[in-house]
């Protein structure tokens, strides 16, 4: 076997109370593949490797059968029918296909698209590209709690509006948009409603019929499935939605997405959905319990910590907190045996603090100080306790080091200071 792949070596080591370090608490970035998912996938790499489009031999039939079972499982989880599920390479492709596909198909009808400023870049950058091709895009602001104002949405709609694309759950702050109400508004006006439900499917109940969703992006690796596979739900009736393909080729997936199907990945996505259908209710109680425990421990010990986004309309496993007077990257350095994310500019590729937090009206200073905790299926109470202690210790240490904390304690109003860099 070749051993020329070099990766950063890291091994799990023993921590206190039987926990293993480092602790993974970044489940909005990705999740580990559930062992039950992996088990179902494995035969499709080796014995059952057939191309699902091979119609004339047993290898092909086995692949096709597996793909159709996966389609049923996904459809069941979200209340769709099997013919409404298109497989893709992941949520980014699904978002691109949904938005560009609808935009092209309905160009005669109108050229106006509505989205929100807190969307994922896969949606925002796709909309920006369409603007170059003559589409008009409205980027709705959000309220302080991260939610879109339905009146803003109503006002933004006009007779040229063809698509509203608003995410189900935000990847940074976990805020759940009122997607059923958004869908209703769209249906009343004959506008197509797409939702990027990457973070929501498998975590909170989604029903495309009851919740008036027309097109929906799904990802496997956010719900304990493999990376590199996703799906797009496209409604077939009342209304029937049509989308133009963005990848041309062999006409797979009823012409909407050409390319040989990733059978093992699709099997994994299907199994992940089957597990979610069975376990979501119980799991979300478990996650919310752990999340609230983490929140209460941190807020019970530290002053001047702020929760970003609504606590009421939120994914059960998400907590996004700003620790005033402490910069996010230095906080991450101090808790380097815990894997979480920060909205600090220093941790982003663009060197800009989180645009999502800025959209909530969080000042840049607090955006730099934010940490996103993503609690998942495999986190334990002992891990949460360890994380809370480590975070609090590190924040306390860094505040001792912080000139801003010192000034605030002396009663200086930091907003009134004339900073040299401004």
């Amino acid at each position: 076997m070749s051993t020329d792949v070099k990766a950063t070596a890291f091994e799990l080591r023993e921590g206190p109370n039987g926990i293993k370090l480092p602790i993974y608490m970044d489940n909005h970035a990705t999740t580990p593949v559930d062992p039950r998912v992996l088990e179902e996938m494995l035969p499709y790499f080796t014995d059952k490797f057939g191309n699902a489009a091979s119609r004339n031999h047993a290898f092909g039939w086995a692949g096709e059968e597996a793909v159709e079972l996966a389609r049923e499982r996904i459809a069941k989880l979200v209340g769709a029918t099997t013919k409404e599920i298109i497989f893709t390479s992941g949520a980014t492709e699904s978002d691109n296909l949904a938005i560009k596909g609808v935009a092209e198909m309905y160009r005669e009808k109108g050229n106006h698209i509505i989205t929100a400023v807190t969307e994922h870049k896969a949606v925002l950058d796709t909309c920006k590209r369409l603007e170059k091709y003559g589409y008009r895009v409205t980027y709705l602001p959000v309220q302080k709690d991260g939610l879109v104002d339905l009146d803003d949405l109503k006002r933004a709609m006009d007779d040229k509006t063809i698509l509203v694309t608003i995410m189900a759950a935000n990847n940074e702050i976990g805020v759940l948009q009122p997607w059923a109400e958004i869908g209703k508004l769209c249906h009343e006006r004959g506008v197509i409603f797409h939702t990027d439900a990457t973070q929501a499917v498998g975590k909170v109940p989604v029903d495309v019929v009851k919740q008036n969703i027309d097109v929906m992006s799904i990802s496997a690796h956010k719900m304990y499935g493999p990376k590199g596979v996703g799906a797009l739900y496209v409604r077939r009736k009342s209304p029937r939605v049509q989308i133009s393909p963005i990848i041309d080729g062999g006409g797979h997936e009823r012409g909407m997405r050409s390319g040989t199907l990733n059978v093992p990945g699709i099997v994994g996505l299907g199994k992940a959905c089957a597990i979610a259908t069975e376990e979501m209710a119980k799991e979300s109680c478990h996650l919310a319990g752990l999340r609230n425990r983490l929140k209460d421990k941190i807020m019970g010990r530290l002053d001047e910590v702020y929760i970003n986004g609504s606590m009421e309309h939120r994914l059960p496993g998400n907590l996004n907190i700003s620790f005033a007077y402490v910069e996010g990257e230095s906080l991450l350095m101090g808790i380097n045996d815990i894997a979480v994310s920060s909205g600090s500019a220093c941790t982003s590729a663009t060197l800009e603090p989180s645009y999502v937090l800025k959209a909530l009206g969080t000042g840049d200073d607090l955006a730099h100080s934010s940490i996103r905790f993503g609690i998942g299926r495999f986190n334990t109470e002992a891990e949460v306790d360890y994380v809370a202690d480590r975070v609090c210790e590190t924040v306390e240490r860094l505040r001792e080091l912080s000139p801003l904390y010192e000034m605030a304690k002396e009663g200086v109003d930091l907003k009134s200071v004339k900073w040299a860099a401004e």
Partner: protein
Amino acid sequence: MAYSDKVLDHYSNPRNVGSLDKNSTDVGTGLVGAPECGDVMKLQIKVNPSTNIIEDAKFKTFGCGSAIASSSLATEWVKGKTVDEALAIKNTEIVKELSLPPVKIHCSVLAEDAIRAAIHDWKKKKQGADEKAAAPAGVQASH
């Protein structure tokens, strides 16, 4: 991003953390950066008025690990130097010492600015005190 051992060392064991009396005439205070930009450094020096040697230095920094390390290193370097020697410290020397990657060069620039700002503040105070001393008895300095 991987940090150099020296950055990690300064981050874990920062040197000269704390504050000096900013009202003392021997003390110069530099406060640079802005919270909105994610970096604020406060660097203070205590200068012997007869030798111009920096006898003590303290810092506090809000910022990433590289910003903390840059300011911690800056306090180590200025201690024992005359103010003129301290003014000669260049950010590129900090970059080299800490092996800072290109995206962190601004941390070293800020540390150099902090040294300059602290020395400037001290000089301004010293000038004020000298003028006051030179002024005839009973006449208040007007500023």
